[in-house]
């Protein structure tokens, strides 16, 4: 009977949205395969976060591990490797976040498990079949393991987090005999003023490109994102110009996101940006150039001056949200 483990992450004492998505996916795959699902939370606050995770996955294993002075993956990976050796689960679902990719990479070195990266969807057909968007979205491929085990890196938004009919149980455990990795110390954590909301977990993202002109123009993007309750994203040109941090960059050398709504402001839609956002549910583009490449993959193309449109749109959204529209 195949075992599916969702490998969770904890932020601010709670499981991340991606964790709940993975727990949901593990449950769905276990149902399809006649197997069993488990959500594994490792780290500071794992036990406290386990309750919420258990609403989505049938079985949560919480491993408390204090490692505030170490990077997350350095704490999680060796403990997970020990658990994998002990229980021999067939499949691990790991989130394609920064920490998730680090965990998966370290596990690749520590264990003999095969892996598939960039999963945008996983279905069961005699084994997990992993859908991936490759080559800048020109192709959608489906891949499978040749054997009956493996790790899958799953992108945020690949599955909708859904609570199970009944909440699952929580087991807290310690992991014995851990072989720690070569030590890296976190000597300081610097918070920079104006750090923006993370885009990986956002359902709505408002992105700004070169067309916003300058930092003041980018502030209009931020205001619309605030009104919509979303996060701001940006193209590489905007990040290079210093109008927003690298953490907000969408695209080839930035992040790949899948929000329900993406509003692209002054973004031409070059391939390097397109790859990061083309699987968004709905794309609205605001651009003065009707022939910009983004018109080829937007659902709504608004041709006009974003300095006229954005403030009015922000106001209209605020009015609507306050019940005035």
């Amino acid at each position, binding site marked *: 009977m195949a075992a599916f483990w969702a490998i969770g992450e904890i932020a601010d004492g709670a499981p991340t949205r991606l964790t709940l998505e993975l727990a949901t996916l593990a449950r769905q795959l276990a149902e399809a395969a006649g197997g069993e699902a488990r959500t594994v939370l490792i780290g500071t606050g794992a036990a406290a976060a386990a309750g919420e995770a258990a609403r989505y996955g049938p079985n949560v294993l919480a491993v408390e591990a204090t490692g505030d002075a170490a990077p997350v993956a350095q704490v999680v*990976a060796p403990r997970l490797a020990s658990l994998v050796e002990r229980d021999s689960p067939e499949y691990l679902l790991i989130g394609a976040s920064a920490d998730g990719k680090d965990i998966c990479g370290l596990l690749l070195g520590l264990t003999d498990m*095969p892996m598939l990266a960039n999963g945008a969807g996983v279905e069961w057909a005699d084994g997990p079949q992993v859908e991936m968007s490759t080559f800048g979205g020109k192709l959608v491929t489906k891949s499978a393991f040749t054997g009956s085990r493996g790790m899958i890196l799953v992108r945020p938004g690949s599955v909708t987090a859904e609570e199970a009919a009944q909440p699952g149980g929580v087991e807290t455990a310690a992991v014995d005999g851990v072989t720690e990795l070569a030590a890296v110390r976190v000597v300081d954590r610097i918070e920079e003023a104006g750090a923006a909301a993370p885009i990986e977990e956002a359902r709505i993202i408002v992105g700004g490109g070169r067309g916003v002109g300058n930092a003041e123009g980018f502030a209009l993007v931020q205001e619309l994102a605030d009104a919509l309750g979303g996060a701001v994203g940006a193209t590489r040109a905007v990040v290079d110009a210093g109008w927003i941090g690298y953490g907000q960059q969408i695209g080839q050398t930035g992040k790949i996101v899948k929000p329900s709504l993406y509003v692209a402001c002054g973004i031409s839609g070059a391939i390097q940006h397109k790859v990061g956002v083309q699987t968004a549910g709905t794309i609205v583009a605001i651009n003065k150039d009707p022939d910009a490449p983004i018109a080829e993959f937007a659902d709504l193309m608004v041709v006009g001056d974003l300095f006229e449109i954005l403030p009015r749109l922000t106001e209209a959204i605020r009015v609507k949200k306050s019940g005035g529209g």
Partner: protein
Amino acid sequence: MNIVVLLKAVPVVGTERLGGDQLTDRATQLEANGNDEYTLEKALKLTEAHGGDVTILTMGPASATDALRKGLAMGAARAVHVVDDALRGSDMRATLEVLVAALGRLEYDLIFAGADTSDGQGGVLGAAVAARLGLPYLSYAQEIEPLPDGVRIHRISTAGYDVLEAPMPALVMGTQLLGEPRYPSLRGIMQARSKPIETWSLADISVDAASVGMDAATSRVLDSQKPPERGGATVIREPAEVAVAQIVDFLSQRRLV
């Protein structure tokens, strides 16, 4: 301070395609993966300031030579190219074994790897190499500086950045924030002509050919297809007031606001 930069030669962005056997066609023109060039640039700056040499290590087909030649022209002292017909179709496990075996024949204080590759891999090999070699792994670096007995990086976080330290040797995975790669100078290009690109076969690094390549791959592509066409966008060209009302209607209909 000697630095080995792991570099992947990828198809020029936008020209990628699958061959008939569902493997990435690498007979097209290849270039250095973007993220790998940022780490190469940082490695060059560090050795220029603190001494030491940069060695580029790649595993890839013969057509990876151009990317290596450019790296030498940028200022790397040496390039090592693991190339062997048996490697075609290798998965990440096999690539890991090859890199680990090749690194065992090189001397270094630091190994640099780039975040993510543009041809669809996961950005996980740096971590895997570090775990296998027992090296400290420092990732998502936006700044790298040597310490008297180690290395310090700034790791990008959601709030800002974390300051990480570890003894050397260590493996650092870097991002584009390390700085724009330089263009090779004419002098650099001339000098690169006399720098050797060493080619190593699997036998040279004592890796069994049966453990790599397509036959040994632990995953396979079942099928590929073009994604459903997006677009056919509804176009609005109206004065701002009218356009805004239409945008709000559109979002309302889709229950997005």
